């Protein structure tokens, strides 16, 4: 039965259910300046995974926290109650918390915390719709939002995940593919410096396969990073006039 469903993820011509080749990412759409009231914000769509991240601050750190000559990054990830096919809040809180921790880990290496000592920068994410690859979408979107807010960063962070189903490596999996994976890899990379800020791997991988998967992910991140880099520049002109994200739009092919 498990095998059957696995087959169902790939069509006879080797493409995936959404006509992608295994090593293709979904059409992505990225835009900064989604939330006008925030210091910086970004909106990202990877297929039908949609997230908004806004950045506030730097603000004074809470008194209870110990003195520190470097700044703090405060990350919080939330899901809308209709983000997933099944409505409900049960169990989601734990996921939110883990995502918040992983987001923090992926970003802290890229943000120059020395540039805002004794203060805190808030990174808040809201997943409007979840269809696989939520965490990489949040990380990529958050690094754009940080850049939009003018926080000093060493580099842009781009992230991507990959599922291993049987012998196939599926880049940027959908929710359906994620539920049937034998293993997964998530990589967040500072794209210009080619340094991995966060990596997680689950399932059983031979060394060669693991390195193949890591290479695949880092290449994809690289490409994503190049296009992400363009976004803040493109949108700077738009921010002055009318900067609200537009949901009905022609998707950008990656």
């Amino acid at each position, binding site marked *: 039965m498990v095998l059957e469903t696995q087959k169902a993820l790939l069509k006879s011509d080797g493409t995936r259910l959404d006509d992608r080749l295994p090593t293709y990412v979904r059409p992505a759409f990225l835009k900064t300046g989604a939330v*006008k*009231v*925030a210091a910086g914000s970004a909106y990202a769509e990877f297929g039908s995974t949609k997230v908004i991240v806004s950045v506030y601050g730097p603000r004074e750190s809470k008194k209870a926290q110990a003195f520190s000559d470097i700044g703090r990054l405060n990350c919080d990830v939330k899901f809308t*109650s209709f*983000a*997933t096919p099944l409505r409900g809040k049960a169990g989601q809180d734990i996921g939110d918390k883990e995502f918040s921790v992983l987001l923090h880990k992926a970003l802290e290496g890229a943000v120059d915390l020395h540039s805002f000592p004794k203060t805190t920068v808030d990174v808040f*994410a809201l997943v409007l719709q979840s269809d696989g690859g939520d965490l990489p979408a949040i990380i990529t979107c958050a690094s754009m939002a940080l850049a939009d807010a003018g926080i000093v960063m060493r580099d842009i962070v781009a992230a991507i995940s990959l599922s291993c189903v049987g012998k196939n490596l599926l880049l940027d999996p959908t929710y359906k593919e994620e539920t049937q994976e034998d293993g997964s890899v998530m990589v967040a990379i500072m794209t210009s410096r080619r340094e991995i800020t966060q990596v997680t791997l689950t399932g059983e991988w031979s060394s060669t396969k693991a390195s193949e998967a890591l290479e695949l992910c880092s290449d994809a991140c690289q490409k994503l990073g190049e296009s992400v880099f363009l976004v803040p520049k493109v949108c700077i002109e738009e921010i002055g006039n009318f900067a609200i994200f537009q949901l009905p739009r022609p998707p950008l092919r990656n």
Partner: protein
Amino acid sequence: MAVEEASGSASVVKDVASSMEVEAFRRLFPLQYIERYLDSAVRPDGRPLGRARPTDVVLGQVPTTDGSALVRLGNTTMLAGVKLELCVPSAETPDQGRIAIDFQMPPICSPHVRPGRPAEDACAINEQLSIVLASSQLLDLRQLSITSGKSAWVAYLDIYCLNADGSLLDAALLASAAALMDLQIPTVSINNDGKVQIVSSREKQDQPMVDAEEGQETKSKFVEGRSLKLGPVPVALTCMLHKKHLLADPTAEEEAVLQTVLVVVLDSPDKLISLYKPGGQVVATTSTVMDCIALTRLRLKEVHSILEEATQTHEED
């Protein structure tokens, strides 16, 4: 003496204003900044006092819901989604379904919201929304009934504020109404025991044939999917009172500075669903109230046509 002092400080402000950059003046003397605009009957964003911001409604944005809508009122953005679940109706109202309204202000929407417990404002708006929807005839809960006393729909209406830039109730109410307009009740099958099951569109085509073969015994009754028949859509207009001025649809900046707020909700030109004025430094006279209602009447027409347009574009897609 006090009066002199006050006028003295006002003239200082004027002097400073002439030699100061606009943005700095806006930050240091927000009240004087706005008052200067108001005196020449215009708003900082160029609107006349009584006009609402450009409004934009898009239906059916979230495929994981049974009905959804995205509403933009200037910068204020609301995303509403309705999800249906099966439930047993309460004994008091056996032929009615339920609606559960949850208004959320996630921390992304405003610098004043922190993660953790919901903000006081969010609670108050949530309550206002529930009351307005209960008082208006928008949704007859009997439409959510499937079989009287046995099964009904419970509609979870969740509204998320993505960008809080004033007049939140107006936008939230519009988003709720639009999401309900977009709501599609799925087809269900009811078997002999009264057990209700949701039928996906593919199964629906197969099922009747099977039933015909097996005859009477296992025959299930189908209740076709449909959209709701809604009553007149209530429309809210937030008005700010300041001295002699009356501003419609304020931004967050205006709300923070001017303080006195009055929200009118109408669902037809003569039917008042709610009039909410929580304190503030300016008292409302009968004529002010009438002015606010008049502005809301104009807005009612405007919003109804926006909603009509949105449904049409949605159907065309």
